[in-house]
């Protein structure tokens, strides 16, 4: 299991602050919402039970990491479990959670066992919390465009999530993997370039 550390937060913020999500409200509903027709429960897949709202992704240049956020509600009567996520726009995607490490810093890590949503419950994906992680973008996520990812559930059903790409400076996805050196220091530089002249990154 990969374990990532969110370096910028770790050095600038205290653990106490980080226990609170930096963004507690995603209150817009102008995202693309995936509606699924409800069918007989005997034929209803896990994907059919899930409705998405306020889905958005953070703009980032090709090669960088990014994340998708939103709210996923289980409108069915069975527990659903998201076991994986993928996208044409990234070499790999992971289901991430944010946990506090032994040293008090917050760490992003792959969510073991996936995201489980009980019937009637809503899974909130948000900066500083659970999110869908693009590990290495194969194309830039450009503000104003849409990004689409595919969720796979434990019954092998799939759900496409699509949402607007937005500028967002928080939730720095410059995670330095503890034991995956192929995403090492070079990433810091890349991210820094993007921050300082992000407006020129229009491909």
């Amino acid at each position, binding site marked *: 299991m990969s374990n990532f550390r969110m370096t910028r937060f770790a050095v600038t913020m205290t653990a106490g602050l980080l226990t609170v999500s930096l*963004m507690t409200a995603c*209150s817009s509903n102008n995202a693309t919402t995936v509606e699924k027709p409800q069918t007989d429960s005997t034929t209803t897949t896990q994907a059919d039970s899930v409705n998405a709202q306020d889905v*958005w992704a953070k703009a980032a240049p090709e090669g960088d990491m990014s994340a998708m956020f939103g709210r996923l509600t289980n409108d069915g009567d069975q527990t659903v479990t998201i076991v994986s996520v993928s996208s044409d726009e990234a070499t790999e995607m992971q289901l991430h959670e944010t946990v506090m490490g032994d040293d008090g810093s917050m760490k992003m890590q792959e969510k073991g066992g996936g995201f489980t949503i009980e019937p009637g419950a809503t899974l909130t994906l948000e900066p500083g919390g659970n999110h869908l992680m693009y590990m290495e973008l194969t194309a830039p996520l450009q*503000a*104003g465009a849409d990004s689409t990812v595919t969720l796979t559930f434990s019954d092998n059903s799939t759900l496409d999530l699509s949402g607007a790409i937005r500028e967002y*400076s*928080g939730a720095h996805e410059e995670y330095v993997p503890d034991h995956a050196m192929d995403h090492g220091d070079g990433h810091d530089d890349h991210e820094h370039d993007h921050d300082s002249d992000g407006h*020129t990154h*229009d*491909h």
Partner: protein
Amino acid sequence: MATEPQDKRSGGWSRRRFLTAGAVAGAGAVAAVAADHVLQGSLRSGKEAATTATQLSGDNSRLTFGRQTVSFDGPVQAGVTIQPQAHTRLMAFDLVESVDRGAIRRLMRLLTDDARSLMRGVAPLGDSEPELATVPAHLTVTVGVGARLIRVAAGESFVPGWLRPLPTFGIDRLRDEWSGGDLVVEVASDDLVAMSHAARLVTKSIRSLAVVRWMQDGFRHAYGTHPEGTSMRNLFGQIDGTVNPVPGTDDFAEVVISRDGWLAGGTSLVVRRIQMDLDTWDDIDRVGREAAVGRRLATGAPLTGTTEHDEPDFDAADSLGFTVIPDFSHMRRARSENRRERIFRRSANYEVMDQHGRPESGQIFMSYQADPVTQFVPIQRRLDELDMLNEWTTPIGSAVFAILPGCGPEGMLGETLF
């Protein structure tokens, strides 16, 4: 200044507010009286309370307009026609070099999503201060474009013939930092916090596509200080904007709204940043000031009339044979026999401090018209040739934009460009 009493909520807003006027008689300059104090009888007599505070009692929701919204959807962008809000920020942007047609489409989508959410009082996706979006106070976000943006999006043939810098006027002292732009976004609200948040959000949202060229903040009377429809006063103390087409009328549609092709439902915006020299204006007495404009300062009435909206009589002469409304007056010079040469004004005051705290005052002149070349330019030419007010006013910025048509609930600003 008004002091808020303790916030008591029981099923919605039950906050009581008091508008206070003047000082407490015999008690010094206590201009603000806390409502609780009034309720608790801490003032010595009812008579005192009556002279110091006017209680707007009853349904307190009437006093709170923060959550009132203006609809984004419609054939004309709401910011063109709504009663001007107390605060406005005009933001001009330059497109980054690399933008292409696809990038313009993304830009328009971002602006549309942001405007639609913000005007509804709903935080746009990714808003890192979402609570600031929930009190829009009549917020409008209005989008206009320059020739370059249209050219990139749709080609030269889509660029209106009038969409170019105004001709040079003799009185102009234009500065590049207040002129031009590929894109303009006006964010206006009756609450300054709402305006500030919306402006920052939009700027951040489009930062990969457009960089700020200039920003101008303007202000008018606060919401609720005057009956709706009252013309504002500028910093010379003059009632400003009296002769204006009325939104919703056929005349307004004729004068202001474009009917041409992709721009049908849109209009043009002329922005002029006009410095006003309050120090030299101070040298002029009231008679001189009224003659300079042709209107009474107290009422805004023409010198030949008694109320603001009286038609001026330009032929009326005094006992010496001089016209009552001087030929050099601003009103006389602005007026045309040609009914087509009319514009819709929606100006705001500005006041900025330099690094030493010295204020510079002026007006952000904003006029909307279907065609600025045939409507605005003739007026400005006459004013350039002769207008007593030129003595105290100096245009230092100028820009022309095509204000995009409005769009429906599923629509996107600028959709007719694609």
